[in-house]
């Protein structure tokens, strides 16, 4: 859809034309909301802050998936496996080598990116279902590897305990303190994701998605671009995994499983594929749904006593799956598209078209 802008607003320089944030009040609003988020522990409960932490980490993983699936069109069911990779790498670097977390987390992202490259290799020859299968293979092989290989180092199925991150002698051991970390990481990844998507690389991603043969004819190096997308996606996942592992202070092969991969993919679709706002909308809405399922679980246990302990586990996939199916049927372009429609309608008011 065309970009609709308020009447009387014109660009007078190239920099202004390329700018993401055009007006002074938008800058003010952005910084005000970022500061408000950093101040969250002052006015929100601990469980609320923990939820925001979880949402931030999820958004980072979905942003990576958005670059791979939303922009490049390569469907991946292995995102959770790359989160596992990142979590393990960071845990090992901190536990075994005593690295501080601000080095181990970028290293975890890089390491996961390299593993992502390996599982992205089949993408040159295969696409569609076949590619889904090869990423699904990653989702099985990586957790299996952490369970069975190097047992004295990776501790088999029990997994690893992860040390509390320490910065300048301050232990980041409460959700309130951890929020500073996740928010900062989220801001960095958002800047990276946004700038990748509007750069030369991002445009190459989009051509590959829209028609890969035509992209190749136009001179896009398919193999390289697809691998770059896989690398970026796995990097984001690795960072998210490392953040989650340090927050949970434990990681094993089941911390991030196939269901998480499916949920990340579903978040992306619900939020909107190929839109930088999509991961935010998707992750927030789906995490809220899961919270609602957690609250409603005990109520259902009273109605259906056969599910005494399993009602929450049953409601989560039920809610998520239903939301995903409804979105696919009624709003396949996701919430980000609906948001743009609403913005356009507001600007065109009172004329609806």
């Amino acid at each position, binding site marked *: 859809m065309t970009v609709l802008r308020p009447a009387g607003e014109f660009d007078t320089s190239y920099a202004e034309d390329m700018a993401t944030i055009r007006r002074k009040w938008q800058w003010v609003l952005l910084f005000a909301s970022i500061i408000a988020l950093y101040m969250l522990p002052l006015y929100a409960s601990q469980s609320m802050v923990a939820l925001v932490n979880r949402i931030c980490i999820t958004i980072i993983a979905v942003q990576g998936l958005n670059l791979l699936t939303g922009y490049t069109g390569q469907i991946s069911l292995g995102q959770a496996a790359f989160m596992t990779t990142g979590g393990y790498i960071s845990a090992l670097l901190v536990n075994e080598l005593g690295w501080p977390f601000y080095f181990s987390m970028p290293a975890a992202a890089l390491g996961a990116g390299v593993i992502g490259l390996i599982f992205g290799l089949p993408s040159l020859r295969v696409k569609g279902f076949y590619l889904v299968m090869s990423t699904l293979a990653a989702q099985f092989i990586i957790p299996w590897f952490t369970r069975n290989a190097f047992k004295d180092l990776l501790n088999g199925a029990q997994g690893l305990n992860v040390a509390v991150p320490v910065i300048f002698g301050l232990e980041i051991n409460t959700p309130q303190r951890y929020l500073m970390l996740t928010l900062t990481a989220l801001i960095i990844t958002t800047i990276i994701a946004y700038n990748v998507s509007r750069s030369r690389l991002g445009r190459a991603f989009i051509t590959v998605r829209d028609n890969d043969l035509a992209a190749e004819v136009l001179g896009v190096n398919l193999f390289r671009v697809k691998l770059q997308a896989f690398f970026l996606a796995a990097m984001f996942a690795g960072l998210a995994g490392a953040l989650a592992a340090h927050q949970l202070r434990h990681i094993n092969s089941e911390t991030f499983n196939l269901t998480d991969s499916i949920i990340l993919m579903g978040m992306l679709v619900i939020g909107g594929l190929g839109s930088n706002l999509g991961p935010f909308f998707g992750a927030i809405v789906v995490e809220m749904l899961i919270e609602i399922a957690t609250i409603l679980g005990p109520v259902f246990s009273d109605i259906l006593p056969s*599910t005494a302990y399993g009602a929450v586990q049953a409601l989560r996939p039920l809610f998520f799956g239903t939301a995903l199916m409804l979105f*696919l049927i009624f709003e396949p372009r996701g919430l980000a598209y609906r948001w743009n429609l609403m913005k356009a309608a507001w600007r065109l008011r009172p004329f609806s078209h």
Partner: protein
Amino acid sequence: MNWQLLPQFATTGLLAGGPIALMALGLVLIFKSSYIFNFAQGQLLLIGALITWWFSVELGLPLWVSIAIALILSALLGLVIERLALRPMTGQPLLSIILMTLGLSQVLQGSALLFFGGNQRNFPQIFPAGDPYKIITPFVYEGNPIVLILKQNLVWSFIVAILGVIVIGAFFKFTKAGLAMRATSEDHELAQSIGLRIHRIFGISWMLAAVVATIGGVLLATSSGLDMSLSIVVLAAFPAVLLGGLESIPGTIIGGLLIGLSVGLVSASTNQFIRNSGEIMPYVVLLLVLMIRPEGLFGQKRIERI
């Protein structure tokens, strides 16, 4: 490699490949007619087995009656799924369709858990459990003849599964409905233009797939018990489908047996690391297939044009 046990493990693996072939058949049936790869097949399997369990154990009906009821109900379920979830997706991009079946799998899993609960249950034995078959092979290893010990339910599951695949294959080959389904799989628009109702055919293939899934679910539940993890077992059938070729019914048998065999062979190893790799063996085979021959053994190679 543990040479003495190798024939035993290879045979057991091949026999385990029968149910895998049956599960792969369910996937191929839907793919052939409507180009949908059904990630919810595992949940169809689970629900089929759960319905059978409910009628036979909770209501106390005879096992054969409850299997018949489960087959009818799952056929209906397949029809409903096609109508409500997949019909609106006609003509949508691949990603949406894949996600639709993934969403469906979550909904079915959640519903199964909500209505039946997640406990481990004892599934009624269809085939006698004890008294395994003993086959003395002509091969001799270090002076002792090699004896194969095969559990009865493994053998009979294999026979039922392979029979099922052959019956469905014959249905496709020799009946008018099968011909219509094959025509639809060639080209949707062309099939429609000669008067085939392709939506009805999609419905039939979903019904068939659900019925096949229920048979597979009952076979697996009777040999390894029934709980929520039954839906995971189908993940071993995906590599079988790709190995055999996405559109090939005979390919499902070969693919299923080869996957079963590869798992069996790995289990015969003396190295614990290799032995543990049995659970991911199907996916290692899958990666090899994707790198060497992505269209599978019997699949169709497609040429792409802009």
